[in-house]
């Protein structure tokens, strides 16, 4: 029964693989839960910041702030791509990389010089492979990104933008709409597109002044955009991994069914044949 033994081996390995993918699915589910909580708890801050900036913002102020500067023509732009440090999450990283390549390509078509900044081992690996030079490559941001991580990511870019070395900064990240919808998107974070005010603003007492408040808040706004990009991508990564591992587990189950059926059929055929041989042998002796 050589084929039978071979099948037993395959059944065992498939069972083991299924155990692993099922565990990974459960781990990703619990991580995703916590990550999407982090996405939810980052919303009040973003909203409060946006509200205040929009209530202070007017076109005349805009010209005085370096972060609001609208360059006449883009000559040099930075693209920040956020990917995961780990794989086994389906097409998640591939989709983000594809989005980044499209963005970079579109910019280069317009004659813009693009600096590429990549977060996450997977994105770095890809661009190393295609031989593109990266301005920065970071792998130190974990799946629990902090506001400090976000600040360190965009601080240098803000300084370069304010100094006129960069004309635009884009972030390519996954948008966490829901567990099932996490499309890759490109956001332009600099120049800051100030949220527009709806309705008449209140008359606030402003200390020290509108200018000073905006000087303080605009960088916060940019840092927050980066923070949100990081937490949403982290949550989307876990969602993608959960889906990938769930289908891997399901597929392993299907494969096991087929293998077990084949094995049993081979075993039965074997027994039937042995009985036929015994009966045949007995009949020959009597005859």
């Amino acid at each position: 029964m050589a084929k039978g033994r071979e099948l037993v081996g395959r059944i065992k390995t498939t069972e083991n693989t299924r155990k692993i993918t099922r565990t990974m699915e459960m781990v990703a589910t619990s991580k995703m839960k916590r990550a999407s909580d982090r996405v939810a708890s980052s919303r009040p801050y973003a909203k409060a910041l946006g509200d205040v900036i929009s209530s202070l913002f007017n076109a005349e102020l805009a010209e005085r702030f370096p972060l609001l500067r609208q360059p006449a023509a883009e000559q040099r732009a930075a693209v920040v791509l956020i990917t995961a440090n780990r794989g086994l999450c389906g097409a998640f990283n591939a989709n983000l990389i594809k989005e980044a390549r499209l963005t970079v390509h579109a910019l280069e078509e317009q004659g813009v010089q693009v600096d590429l900044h990549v977060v996450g081992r997977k994105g770095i690996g890809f661009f190393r492979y295609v031989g593109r030079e990266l301005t920065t490559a970071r792998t130190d941001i974990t799946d629990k990104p902090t506001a400090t991580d976000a600040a360190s990511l965009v601080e240098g870019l803000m300084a370069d933008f304010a100094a006129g070395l960069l004309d635009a900064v884009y972030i390519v990240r996954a948008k966490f709409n829901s567990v099932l919808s996490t499309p890759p998107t490109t956001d332009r974070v600099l120049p800051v597109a100030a949220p527009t005010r709806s309705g008449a603003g209140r008359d606030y007492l402003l200390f020290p002044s509108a200018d000073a408040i905006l000087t303080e808040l605009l960088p916060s706004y940019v840092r927050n955009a980066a923070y949100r990009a990081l937490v949403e991508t982290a949550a989307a990564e876990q969602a993608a991994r959960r889906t990938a591992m769930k289908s891997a587990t399901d597929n392993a189950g299907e494969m096991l069914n087929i293998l077990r059926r084949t094995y049993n059929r081979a075993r039965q055929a074997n027994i039937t044949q042995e009985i036929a041989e015994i009966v045949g042998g007995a009949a020959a002796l009597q005859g």
Partner: protein
Amino acid sequence: MLKVSVVSPEATLYEGDATSVVAPAFDGEVGILPSHAPMITVLGQGTLRVNGETLARFTVSGGFVQVVDDVVRVVTEQATPA
């Protein structure tokens, strides 16, 4: 009563009613009582005190306080309960 919320980028640290709030503004402490005029002020570093049912203290750094219609929003870059 004031409706007070304290938010940082990572979490909402306080949400509830209070009788007064003392915040470390950029140029010294600012006390906020009910019926305060609408105000936005930049925060410095220091201890934020919220007099709710119990006294809540937070160490904050950077950000701003917005007061409008007895709603106080403390929006800060870094906040830890102290």
